[in-house]
């Protein structure tokens, strides 16, 4: 396509264990304090929970809050921050044609109800009849809506009035990468003028941890930076929400909005993850993007999760690439579908400050270039999916 146009990021909404908004995250990085994690509540598992959040600020109606489970509240909150940052919040004429792509996990369970059913089942004489009876009596009607993956988007429509269109992608990290890739592609090709894209994850939950313990993925016992969790590796799951507003320059200029950064390319790929395949996919993505990269002003913002062998595979390729590297996962933990949008948001912040955050862990390398103008943002999924984006400063 020769008629592609630029795509700007005009809004970022970030809610992580470092606090609310980009400046809170920046200040936390700058202070050089240890990452905020919780090793006790879900021991032996280590998670990055959110600090106290006053959800009323973005979800004023208690009746709306009651219709959501926590992952949805986190997402609706972060989406509201992004819309506010972009200057779209409360503007129905703009929100009417604002598109939306959400990457979601869903499936948040009623832990009390499920636990009671499992306990009762141990002594049930007619197991199937017992399950039917308990489900009919114990499930809350509204819980289903809190489990449906697309109801994060649905709640964003209801609470914030984003009604251009709404799509939800499923499938762990690569859902988050493809959400951004397709949002970027649609704006670039003129299929959308402005798109809200992102996701939310509520990692500080037993049912959530269970889904990933099948693979032994959650980080246990001892915290370490993502690069230094070998040999077993491990992911410190996070509760976090992250949304971006992607917009055409024409649309942004017409309403007087300024770009935080330009998102020039997004690639996603998959392979079977046999030995060497992660590296091959990442090298191919790097070769594709390399002609656009000015090494003197470029660095890598890695989304490494801490799981092995994916983290070491990414590190090998980044060492070949040889640009300065910083990771975010050591500080904000891992929010799966929401992580890529979170890292792009942090990337905007890094470009605006013109300096990398301090290194954390042995894979963070190099010094901040004096004129930092490009960031390569990576995503190597715990199980599948390799992604890479190019973020650039807009002069």
């Amino acid at each position, binding site marked *: 396509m020769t008629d592609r146009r630029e795509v700007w990021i005009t809004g970022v909404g970030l809610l992580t264990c470092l606090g609310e908004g980009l400046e809170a995250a920046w200040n936390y990085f700058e202070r050089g304090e240890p990452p905020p994690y919780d090793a006790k509540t879900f021991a032996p598992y280590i998670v990055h929970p959110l600090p106290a959040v006053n959800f009323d600020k973005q979800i004023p109606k208690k009746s709306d809050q009651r219709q959501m489970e926590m992952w949805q509240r986190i997402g609706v909150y972060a989406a509201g921050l992004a819309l506010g940052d972009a200057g779209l919040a409360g503007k129905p004429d703009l929100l009417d044609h604002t598109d939306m792509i959400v990457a979601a996990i869903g499936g948040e369970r009623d832990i009390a109800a499920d636990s009671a059913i499992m306990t009762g089942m141990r002594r049930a004489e007619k197991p199937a009849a017992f399950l039917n009876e308990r489900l009919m009596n114990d499930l809350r009607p509204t819980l289903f809506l809190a489990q449906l993956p697309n109801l994060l988007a649905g709640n964003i429509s*209801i609470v914030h009035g984003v009604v251009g269109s709404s799509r939800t992608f499923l499938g762990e990290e690569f859902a988050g990468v493809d959400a951004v890739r397709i949002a970027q592609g649609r704006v670039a090709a003129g299929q959308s003028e402005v798109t809200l894209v992102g996701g939310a994850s509520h990692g500080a939950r037993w049912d959530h941890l269970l889904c990933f313990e099948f693979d032994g993925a959650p980080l246990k016992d001892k915290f370490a930076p993502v690069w230094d969790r070998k040999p077993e590796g491990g992911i410190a799951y996070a509760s976090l929400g992250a949304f971006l507003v992607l917009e055409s320059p024409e649309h942004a200029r017409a309403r007087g909005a300024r770009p935080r950064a330009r998102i020039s390319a997004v690639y996603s790929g998959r392979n079977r993850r046999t030995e060497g395949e992660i590296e091959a996919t990442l090298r191919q993505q790097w070769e594709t993007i390399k002609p656009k990269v000015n090494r003197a002003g470029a660095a890598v913002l890695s989304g490494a999760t801490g799981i092995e062998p994916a983290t070491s595979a990414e590190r090998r390729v980044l060492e070949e690439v040889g640009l300065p590297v910083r990771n975010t996962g050591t500080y904000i933990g891992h929010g799966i579908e929401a992580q890529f949008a979170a890292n792009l948001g942090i990337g905007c912040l890094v470009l605006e400050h013109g300096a990398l955050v301090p290194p954390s862990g042995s894979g963070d390398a190099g010094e901040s270039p004096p004129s930092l103008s490009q960031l390569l943002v990576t995503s190597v999924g715990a199980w599948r999916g390799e992604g890479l984006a190019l973020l650039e400063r807009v002069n």
Partner: protein
Amino acid sequence: MAEASSGAAAATRDKAGRPIVAVTGIGLVTSLGVGKSDNWAKLTGGVSGIRRVSRFPTEGLKTTIAGTVDDVYKDYMSPAELSERIALLAGEEAIEQSGIGSKGHFPGPLCLAPPPLEVEWPARFKMDEMAAANDDAGYHVLIRVAREYAANFGAFRFGIVGERLAEHFGTEGSPISLNTACASGAAAIQLGLEAIRRGECTAALAIGADGSVTAESLVRFSLLSALSTQNEPPEQASKPFSKNRDGFVIAEGAAALVLEDLAHARARGARVLGIIEGCGEKSDSFHRTRSSPDGKPIVACIRNALADAGVSPDDVDYINAHGTSTPENDKMEHLGVATVFGERIKDIPISSNKSMIGHTLTAAGTVEAAFTLLTLEHQRLPPTINYKVPDPAIALDVVPNVARDAHIHRAISNSFGFGGQNVCLVMAREPA
């Protein structure tokens, strides 16, 4: 854009200068059977696929019927396994008809609409048994044996269906698993359509698949009062647009469409089964499960689709209804189409496949697009069965009870879902 007005290229670009997107392969699995010829024969024969649930005991449930894919289901298949299986069958049928690519290599991306997946009750109960805990049950107990469970029975993974299908068909890039509730299947087609229009690919494999009838899925929809409770006789429960309609019937099914740049399809001599001319969306911020009472989002969705296709309401000859058989949907859909098409709506036949196959949930948009393409191909309108007590408030030609022949060139298919999801597809016969 310039070549759109000249010679041979004009025939493969639309009015907006975009590549025209053809369908060159269709695959179908529903409660009526496996394969499109069997499905089409039964659908136009007015046969219902709705029956009593036999897969698990229904004691204590309000609704005990469903449109299950019993021809495919085998004991102990999880929703992920069954959804993958029917998606695979539909995909193979579509690719074989299309003749595109080579075995194990489909030259384009996979756009999949799978059901949302989670750890299921049989797995939870098995893990609780394996844990043999003395304390109360709960996820903190299950997690102790999760790795041992996975070693014996396989790990749970959210993206498993798309991953395995991408591996099987050899599609390119990262598989997209899309969920927009009951509009998912239509949105999957839209993703492929848009990717071809962007020039990212010349073909895409769109699949909607839902094999998730479980006790809990029945209970969840029951608690929202969405399901018909008229269990006897099962085949008469789904009665869209009837006055006595009382809810939808949950069902399983899958459909696959091979979407292809028309220029690419013609260049390789492929048979063109139909054209996806356009797609429209509009979200509804009124309520989580109900449509805005003024019908504006549905109206905007259909109008967006017609505008995207570059056609007017007068150009539409048939409507494949969302037609769920819930009191709410059918009333709102009538308001929507009556507003868009005005007085002419009385002359546009509109029928609901769901009267026979039930509501195939995340697959419905793809399944019904496949049936719409077959409707255009065969010039025969499938009926709305069980139409015995017309709703006087819904004055529509629903093709009552019996299929009929018709001359139609262009059709739309509506899909509306919880969470304010509205998608409308515009399909037509191959242009001359």
